[in-house]
């Protein structure tokens, strides 16, 4: 048995930092195991303890603020029992008895009935010893992360018996915002595909589902206040929509996994599908003095637009409990506005002259005000930052354009705004999966700037835009490549800078995903003990 260790900077502390993988030589065959994303402090000892699914118990510590009846944790115990013991069925009982093992859970707060939010602590401590383990955290969200880690520490020998080694872990996320964007407008994703994505996200410790729910091609969100939006704007008014109960189901499923659901209603561009069910919302484009019949972005010159948006966002904020909301604001084409005489008159009236970015800034600022009145923090795509003169009105900017994205991150943080980084993680752009390294070797804070600036980088996000993606290929395109980004967002950067050392751990993690029924694509030539059994 051998434990690999890397150089650590605090050698006096009896904790092995940067333990990248544990190789256990067992009966001539070696079992590689590890945790993905890598915990901040992890020590694994050679002693191993057998586990028996029949005598494995989760329980709450006496001083824990949460006790039995905690919806989030009780459901998590049930889930993780099956994840920890994948071969376990009630019938097979070849496991030796009297290997009783207790996993003691203890939290400082009782937030069982809350939603995770941008301030939630996800920190946890896990200590595994003979016959028991204790998992402590401030919140239930930290416990969820710890359960995931524990499940990855358990392994099977070649006879199928389960073991866990003596282990100490102290862990917390490097970035608070670790998101996955799904686009349900270019292709409709059935609800079960979203739910399964939430499962896979929790395995990689992602904590935000950015739901790019509507866009030009379709409007699948069924609004209470404006049912015509999906009646006319969805691909199909009955089969290709998300009902209110679908949205609630996604939000509740996400909450159980410590995941926030961040809805995006992108405007004023990317709104073609909105216009089908809401007349006078989009700008009529003109051709030679007369309306051409075509429509452009949302019409920023009409009062009715803002009344509509106020009502829509009021609904949206009540449906989606998260305190953030994404307003979009990207890729606005000015040509239609320019062609419209009413818009031009409005520009004159407002003193914008011919400066269309000012018009867009005006529009977005109105929207930001609408959402702040609803107590929501708004996120916008970087385009808004680029043309906005009064940047102080903004709060969170998502950087998505390619090129020197860190230059942009630097610029945005210098303006005192928070940043979410997406540029390096556009996973819908192909490349064989061995390119996972390109999502791993991203250094979000490698820009010159003050500590204060660095703190404004609140996280990052993997984007799966939907032009060429639907339920047929979503999973192998997203996983395990998104997991590479997940480690970058969760783990310590110094301990996870080497692609070469991460590689066997990621391969092992990918096989774990398969075992859990996630259709994660291969990284390169090779095999998993349990291959994917679907088509």
């Amino acid at each position, binding site marked *: 048995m051998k434990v690999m260790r890397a150089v650590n900077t605090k050698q006096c502390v009896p904790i092995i930092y940067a333990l990248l993988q544990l190789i256990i030589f067992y009966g001539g065959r070696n079992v590689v195991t590890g945790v993905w994303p890598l915990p901040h402090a992890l020590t694994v000892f050679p002693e191993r303890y057998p586990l028996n699914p029949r005598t494995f118990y989760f329980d709450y510590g006496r001083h824990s603020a949460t006790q039995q009846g905690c919806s989030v944790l009780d459901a998590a115990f049930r889930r993780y029992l099956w994840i920890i013991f994948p071969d376990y069925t009630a019938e097979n009982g070849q496991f030796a008895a009297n290997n009783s093992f207790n996993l003691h859970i203890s939290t400082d707060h009782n937030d069982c009935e809350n939603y995770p939010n941008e301030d939630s602590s996800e920190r946890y401590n896990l200590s595994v010893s003979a016959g028991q383990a204790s998992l402590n955290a401030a919140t239930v969200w930290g416990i969820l992360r710890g359960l995931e880690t524990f499940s990855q520490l358990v392994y099977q020998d070649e006879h199928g018996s389960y073991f866990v080694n003596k282990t100490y872990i102290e862990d917390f996320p490097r970035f608070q915002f670790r998101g996955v964007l799904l686009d349900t407008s270019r292709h409709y994703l*059935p609800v079960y595909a979203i739910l399964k994505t939430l499962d896979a996200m929790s395995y990689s410790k992602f904590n935000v589902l950015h739901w790019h729910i509507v866009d030009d091609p379709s409007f699948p969100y069924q609004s209470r206040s404006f049912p015509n939006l999906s009646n006319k704007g969805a691909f199909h008014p009955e089969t290709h929509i998300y009902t209110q109960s679908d949205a609630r189901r996604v939000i509740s499923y996400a909450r159980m996994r410590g995941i926030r659901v961040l809805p995006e209603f992108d405007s004023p561009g990317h709104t073609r599908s909105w216009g089908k069910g809401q007349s006078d919302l989009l700008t009529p484009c003109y051709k030679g003095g007369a309306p051409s019949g075509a429509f452009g972005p949302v019409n920023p010159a009409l009062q009715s637009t803002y009344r509509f948006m106020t009502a829509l966002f009021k609904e949206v904020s009540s449906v989606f409990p998260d305190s953030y909301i994404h307003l979009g604001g990207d890729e606005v084409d000015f040509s239609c506005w320019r062609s419209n005489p009413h818009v031009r008159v409005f520009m004159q009236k407002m003193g914008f002259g011919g400066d269309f970015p000012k018009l867009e800034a005006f529009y977005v600022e109105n929207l930001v005000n609408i959402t702040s009145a609803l107590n929501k923090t708004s996120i916008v795509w970087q385009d808004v930052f680029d043309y906005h003169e009064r940047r102080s009105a903004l709060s969170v900017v998502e950087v998505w354009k390619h090129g020197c994205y860190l230059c942009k991150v630097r610029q945005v943080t210098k303006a005192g705004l928070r940043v979410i980084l997406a540029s390096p993680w556009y996973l819908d752009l192909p490349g064989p999966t061995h390119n996972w390294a390109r999502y791993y070797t991203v250094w979000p804070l490698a820009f010159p700037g003050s500590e204060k600036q660095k703190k404004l980088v609140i996280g990052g996000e993997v984007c799966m835009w939907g032009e060429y993606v639907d*339920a*047929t290929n979503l999973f192998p395109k997203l996983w395990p490549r998104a997991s590479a980004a997940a480690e970058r967002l969760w783990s310590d950067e110094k301990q996870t800078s080497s692609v070469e050392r991460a590689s066997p751990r990621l391969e092992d993690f990918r096989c774990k995903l398969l075992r859990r029924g996630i259709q994660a694509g291969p990284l390169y030539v090779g*095999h998993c003990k349990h291959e994917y059994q679907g088509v």
Partner: protein
Amino acid sequence: MRALSVSALLLLALGCCWGTQDNFLDEDVVEPVIQASKYGSLWPLPQKVQISDVPLKLSGTTFEFTDAKGSTAGASCSVLQNAYRRYFDYIFGGPKKQKMSRNRRSGPTEVTELQVSITSPDSQCDGYPGVTSDESYELSVDAPVAVLKAPTVWGALHGLETFSQLVYEDKYGAKTINSTKVSDFPRFAHRGILLDSSRHFLPIKVLLANLETMAMNKFNVFHWHIVDDQSFPYLSRTFPQLSQKGAYHPYTHVYTPADVKMVIEFARLRGIRVIPEFDTPGHTQSWGKGQMDLLTPCFSGAAPSGTFGPVNPILNTTYDFMSRFFKEVSSVFPDGYVHLGGDEVDFSCWKSNPDIKKFMDEQGFGQDYSKLESFYIQKLLDIVTTTKKGYIIWQEVFDNGVKLKPDTLIHVWKGNQEQYQSEMAKITSAGYQTLLSSPWYLNRIYYGQDWQNPYKADPQDFKGTEEQKKLVIGGEACLWGEYVDATNLTPRLWPRASAVAERLWSAKEVTDINDAYNRLSAHRCRMVERGIPAEPLFSSFCPHEYKGI
């Protein structure tokens, strides 16, 4: 021009999809909804097809497939009987219901029967399809009886697929088919898909699902690249050590004789040939684990380095092994052809080995190691000839000047368009038959609609005489397995391989990208509805999205 057609495609992609013609999408001017193809969702497009405007109804309670009087295949023909059940299921979404309403009068516009007639004396019901099989068929859809005529069952299978593709749902959801006449045959005899089960093991379920999908696309050859450097999953009865030692796992990651039989029979029932490839002398690292002395020991200086190179061509034991091995292969796989590989042989190990150097001198090969390769291949071809099989080899064998039997099939895989076209010209001018794969390496993926380039390639597009063009017997789409396994194989292959299917089946003149886009979108939705996770071409939707996750 190019930009125009691209943007036109984007617009139409936003606007339309199969089954939505009468629909809720506003037909405003910004999104010109391109008309659905006048050929509906037919894919690959038949050689001759006339679809009338007369809609006829079909009902799962009255419709049946029958064997026509005088057909040379009847109730005992499992190929047809299995196909009837399959297509009934595809058309009506379930098995045949009890004939509760058998007495219900069918209206004058209802199709209640598809009569299938096999016209040649030998229906080939109990045989295997081959390179010379007649796959033609004629279909005439009318009420109350539609008629499908084909010389062999293989043609009838294609006709049944076409029939199923003609059925659509009217706006009330009723199964409908227009009165139609089809006369159809393939442009090329060899229309293949290569799957690689060595870089990643592909569970049987995946292989079968792809055979099923191949039949929907009228492919007729499954080129099974079954072993390679990385693993040897073929369980040989003669040399069980090969998979025992060379597979990723000796029990869970192998194809047993029963598995192989199942694949071959499943393919036969769909008119698909199974051609195995046992690639040598290179690409054989996994062979060496279970067969001592088969591979060449590489030397580092004067001593063996512990690594191994290609098959050792200088030992008699090598040829004894190959004789016994290919004897087994030729009895396990019934097809008339076996693929012998012969690509990418790395000479450095041979060069390092003193025994090989000595042998080279004895044979008078000098420093020309391609002569040694030729020596090996030549002996291998002689061995395979004794098994009465024809053989296919990768182009390098021809390029290296190995003496080949005149009926050898040469498989072109290298190079860009200019290079493969000149290779095709060279091979055919030497009088050999050839297969094209170079433009159809579907393991290579690009952002955007990457079905279009494969669609545009034409295997007969090279400088040569009519006689030369006739020597092109088809092509194969290849999905190499470095980055492909059961998790992503099907959406990566389909519907991109469908583009190749149409190129190999339909008339040369079928090249309209817009029309192809419309038909292919609908065809891909049909595959999805049939449970195949074929990926989307672009932003769009299917009436029935994939439910298999």
